[in-house]
């Protein structure tokens, strides 16, 4: 994967030196800049240097800000991570509860209305959701919440909790509907299964049927989707951070793309893709741990 990021950003016939110096650059200054960034070496050499740098933590300097990347990015990573964490902690239980309850009350009022709401919200782009929230809560209708997050440089992300409300809410809204739908479908299937009927016929209390037999089996398949959506959040932060001026990796990436700051783009692409892959991996492990059938096979 690191090779792919590198190839996409570096090996394609575009010249960062040219991009930085502009059209009027003389051949001599271009050559000098290329030598400075090591762009005159062969691709495999460039890749090894870069990969060594990533592994050892020495990421080189950002082209645009001339700051060491680690110094520039580190506080932003923790800020974004905090944002993602809040969104995940909020949306996972919410979507499981809504989905499971809708399955229990299948085709009743709660089910139809929650499915309609989730349908409406599911495909809406984050910036549309975020802007609507801003219009409602921060500017035009009521002014309860700040429209932007303001973090003093160097202060932790939890120092502006009010400012975090809208970004977190936006991320939650873009993830919850889909997960809730999948949870509902999984729960409906489990509730109709033979073993639930068996459990009911054995005279186990309805409460225990739901909590011990139905829910664990429905959460298993849903976990995969949760992971996919958390990973999707890693992409969503790019938009949401931009919208609320949140100083995280997403807005850093958008800036880096605009100024063609390749080392920063490469590194952030790696970080976001790594988050994506890690969450998927965790979900695979989680599925095995949660699903009773798979768990017993492990022993």
């Amino acid at each position: 994967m690191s090779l792919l990021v590198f190839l996409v950003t570096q090996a394609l016939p575009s010249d960062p030196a040219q991009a930085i110096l502009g059209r009027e650059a003389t051949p001599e200054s271009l050559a000098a800049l290329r030598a400075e960034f090591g762009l005159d070496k062969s691709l495999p050499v460039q890749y090894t240097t870069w990969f060594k740098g990533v592994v050892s933590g020495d990421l080189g300097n950002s082209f645009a800000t001339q700051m060491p990347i680690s110094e520039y990015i580190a506080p932003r990573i923790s800020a974004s991570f905090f944002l993602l964490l809040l969104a995940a902690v909020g949306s996972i239980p919410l979507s499981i509860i809504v989905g499971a309850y809708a399955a229990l009350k299948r085709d009743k009022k709660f089910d139809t209305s929650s499915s309609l709401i989730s349908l409406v919200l599911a495909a809406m782009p984050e910036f549309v959701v975020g802007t609507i929230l801003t219009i409602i809560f921060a500017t035009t209708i009521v002014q309860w919440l700040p429209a932007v997050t303001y973090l003093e440089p160097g202060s932790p992300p939890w120092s502006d909790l009010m400012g975090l409300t809208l970004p977190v809410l936006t991320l939650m809204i873009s993830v919850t509907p889909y997960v809730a739908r999948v949870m509902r479908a999984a729960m409906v299937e489990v509730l109709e299964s033979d073993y639930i009927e068996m459990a009911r016929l054995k005279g186990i209390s309805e409460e225990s049927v739901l909590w011990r037999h139905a829910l664990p089996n429905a959460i298993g398949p849903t976990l995969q989707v949760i992971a996919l959506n958390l990973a999707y959040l890693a992409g969503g932060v790019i938009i949401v951070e931009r919208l609320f001026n949140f100083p995280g990796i997403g807005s850093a990436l958008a800036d880096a793309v605009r100024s063609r700051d390749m080392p920063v783009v490469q590194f952030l692409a790696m970080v976001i893709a790594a988050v994506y892959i890690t969450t998927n991996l965790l979900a695979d492990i989680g599925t095995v741990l949660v699903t009773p059938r798979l768990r017993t096979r492990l022993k």
Partner: protein
Amino acid sequence: MSIINASQPGDIALAHQASLFRRGLKLRRTKIGIAISVTLMTIAILGPFVAPFGSTEYVDMPNTLHVAGTVFGTDYFGQDVLSRFLFGGRSILILAVFATGLGIFFGGTLGLIAAYQRGRIDEAIMRSLDVILSFPQVLLSLVVISMFGPSRVLIICTVALSTMPRIARIIRGAAVPVVERDFIAAAEALGETRRRVVFAELLPNVTSSLLVEMNLRLTYSVGLIASLAFLGFTPDPNAANWGLMVQENRVALTEQPWGVILPVLALALMTIGTGLIGDGLSRVSAGIDRGAHSE
């Protein structure tokens, strides 16, 4: 003889597809969805012809609400908000249609081939598509744009590239059970070429999944392209564009909300409309969010 045999499954599938549409149309949500989508697409396509001002024409002082001759006032640059809005949907829609078409073509083909060949080729195709899947869509587009700048062709290609693996997965999933059916073996026994088996026998039997998927991907492509525009990556930074409009006018949201409200409402309604259509279609075709035993 081979012709008669070969055309049969296709005919059945076509009849099924027609009835899918008819049954889908009976649902109220599909009707509402179509009404919303058609209205917005009409605005996006015909808007430029009825706009009172040009898309980059200076009308009056920036961010003024009440300007003679305008309905919603002027935007951050003194342009007519309504005209910018009427101009702003077309490019997003066109890019999205091309990107979806391209994604469906390549993703569909790869998915069908993977389902038909199985084994090593299947593994190779699906694993390499998984590599693309490991990047969030926005990220993939941004990385490519960072190299070449946001040209039209590039936006279409990156969006198509990032939708392709998702389409391939769905189509492969829908095609695998079809491959195991007898008429495929019959077609092979008759000596049909592999290409013919894939495109004339297999393809007509997955059209309903393809249709639902196309609808879904079009919705997401509109969202993705508008999001890129919102981040400031559009082919033409001066042209009107719903995503860009939100970005441009959101600083003055308190004085002049229309420049943000109109495009945001349009995009929201568009995704709602196509979402309703897709939901209606998938309800009648597969009963997607029903339990396994309910139908």
